[in-house]
């Protein structure tokens, strides 16, 4: 790859968008650089299931012609974006990482796809993921195990593993992931990028293959908080095609990024947020809190009485709802599922209706406690997950005292809280472990307060350089 192309890939999405608008760089060069990067590194990473090589080049040429003629499509004009492969793209294969849908070609766009297209994005491909988003490793038996660009023998987390890897490895300027129990935030943390799980109902799920209807969300994954806010501007808002979307007003999510955190009250739940962690994760997130304190924030202990129990509630709901969606396919073609997803779908058939509904009642309780706590603090900050990247294929993880734990339960220790309560949460890179593997912190906010989360994340990135480091591939 030549120097000019390599320099293009180091631009943030916001920088690239500004340079396209001022006609200093062309969408043709941006797309060419991204496609060349995919060719150069993705054989080792398996982040993409489908690359739109010809289509993306054609659209880039048209985008160049339009901008030169003075016709600006929007804030993402000419920007190479990639989509998790559970978002429908009209006329292009959408597999959800499964063999079951290996030949499915949607006749419609997902609303997120359509809104990004309308804002001027150029889609460079569809991204690999944990099969049907039901799992946190992205060790996909059908399209290859996705690998972490910081260490290719380590996992990228999931389920939006391809999205996290594609962004971290500079194979696109931004990606869309989906998040039910942590599937945006986990791969964002493990790959050292920014990712937001929106408030439930803030972003449309229309045209996205569901995992668990009552917790599913979609959101952007990028290298900087500013980039994330720009993408979020394009996709947030009510959608008549998705009855779960809210009519709460949208704002300009990139408008308050420079307002700082002076006076910010950060909640920490004692006995939970810094309990049961690998030491480098604890140190990095505590370091992140210190940085924010140095910028004028205050850290306050806040008890959430019933926070314990959230993992069981999460697993019960995440088991029951997918097993409902997959009920026919599981009976007609069980052999077409990977071993782990098949097992999880079978398990979901055997939980009782009362288990499911007690879990849904627990969600009400937990949400009430958090909303009450937001009278004392503005946000909560905790680790995004309690460990750094494990080996590809590992189903167990050691967090402390040499004890092996089940990966699925362990990985949801912190991400389950926003998933159950419907609250928005943002992962921001906050350090590295001694092996050079990224650590992320999760900022949890009030309903529909994504702009505030972006403001805190931007303040943090203005004082740190974790997001500027690149994996050596």
């Amino acid at each position, binding site marked *: 790859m030549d120097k000019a192309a390599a320099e293009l890939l180091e631009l943030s999405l916001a920088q690239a968008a500004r340079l396209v608008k001022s006609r200093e760089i062309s969408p043709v060069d941006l797309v060419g650089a991204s496609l060349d990067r995919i060719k150069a590194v993705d054989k080792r990473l398996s982040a993409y299931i489908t690359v739109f090589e010809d289509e993306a080049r054609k659209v880039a040429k048209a985008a160049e012609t339009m901008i030169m003629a003075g016709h600006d499509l929007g804030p993402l004009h000419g920007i190479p974006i990639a989509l998790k492969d559970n978002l429908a793209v009209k006329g292009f294969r959408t597999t959800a990482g499964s063999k079951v849908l290996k030949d499915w070609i949607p006749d419609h766009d997902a609303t997120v796809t359509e809104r990004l297209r309308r804002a001027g994005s150029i889609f460079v491909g569809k991204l690999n993921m944990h099969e049907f988003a039901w799992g946190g490793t992205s060790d996909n038996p059908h399209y290859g195990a996705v690998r972490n660009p910081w260490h290719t023998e380590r996992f990228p987390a999931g389920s939006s593993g391809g999205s996290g890897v594609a962004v971290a490895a500079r194979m696109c300027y931004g990606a869309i992931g989906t998040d039910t129990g942590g599937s945006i935030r986990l791969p964002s943390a493990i790959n050292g990028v920014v990712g937001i799980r929106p408030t439930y*109902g803030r972003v449309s799920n229309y045209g996205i293959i569901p995992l668990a209807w*009552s917790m599913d969300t979609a959101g952007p994954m990028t290298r900087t908080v500013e980039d994330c806010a720009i993408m979020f501007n394009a996709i947030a808002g009510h959608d008549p095609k998705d*009855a*779960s*979307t*809210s*009519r*709460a007003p949208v704002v300009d999510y990139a408008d308050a990024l420079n307002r700082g955190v002076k006076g910010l009250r950060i909640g920490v739940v004692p006995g939970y947020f810094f309990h049961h962690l690998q030491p480098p994760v604890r140190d990095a997130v505590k370091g992140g809190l210190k940085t924010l304190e140095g910028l004028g924030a205050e850290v306050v202990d806040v008890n959430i009485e*019933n926070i314990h*129990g959230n*993992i*069981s*509630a999460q*697993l*019960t709901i995440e*088991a029951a709802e997918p097993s409902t969606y997959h009920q026919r396919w*599981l*009976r007609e073609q*069980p052999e077409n599922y990977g*071993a782990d997803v098949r*097992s999880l779908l*079978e*398990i979901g*058939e*055997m*939980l*009782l209706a*009362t*288990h499911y*509904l*007690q*879990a*849904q*009642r*627990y*969600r*009400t*309780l937990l*949400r009430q406690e958090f909303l009450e706590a937001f009278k004392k603090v503005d946000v909560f900050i905790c680790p995004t997950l309690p460990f750094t990247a494990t080996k590809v294929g590992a189903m167990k993880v050691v967090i402390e005292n040499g004890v092996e734990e*089940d990966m699925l339960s362990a990985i949801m220790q912190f991400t389950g809280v926003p998933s*159950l309560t*419907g609250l928005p949460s943002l992962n921001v890179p906050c350090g590295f472990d001694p092996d050079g593997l990224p650590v992320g912190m999760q900022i949890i906010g009030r*309903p*529909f307060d994504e702009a505030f989360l972006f403001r805190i994340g931007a303040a943090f990135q203005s004082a740190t350089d974790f997001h500027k480091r690149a994996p050596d591939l």
Partner: protein
Amino acid sequence: MASRKEVTPAAIGVLAGYAELTLAPDREEVIHATLEAWIKDANELSRKMSAEKYRDLIPATVFSHAVDTEEGG
């Protein structure tokens, strides 16, 4: 003999039958340990949520008809 409270592979076979889900021969063994752990935790959560002080809590999935309010439906 297994107690009635235990989730055994044989019990899984019965549950699958109730759900009209035909399991291949090895499947009961494959899912046994995970299902047993999840049901144990789910029962613990059910006991907690059955407490008198939570009697008025309704599930998060109930229609709220609040689509025009600030927090949506």
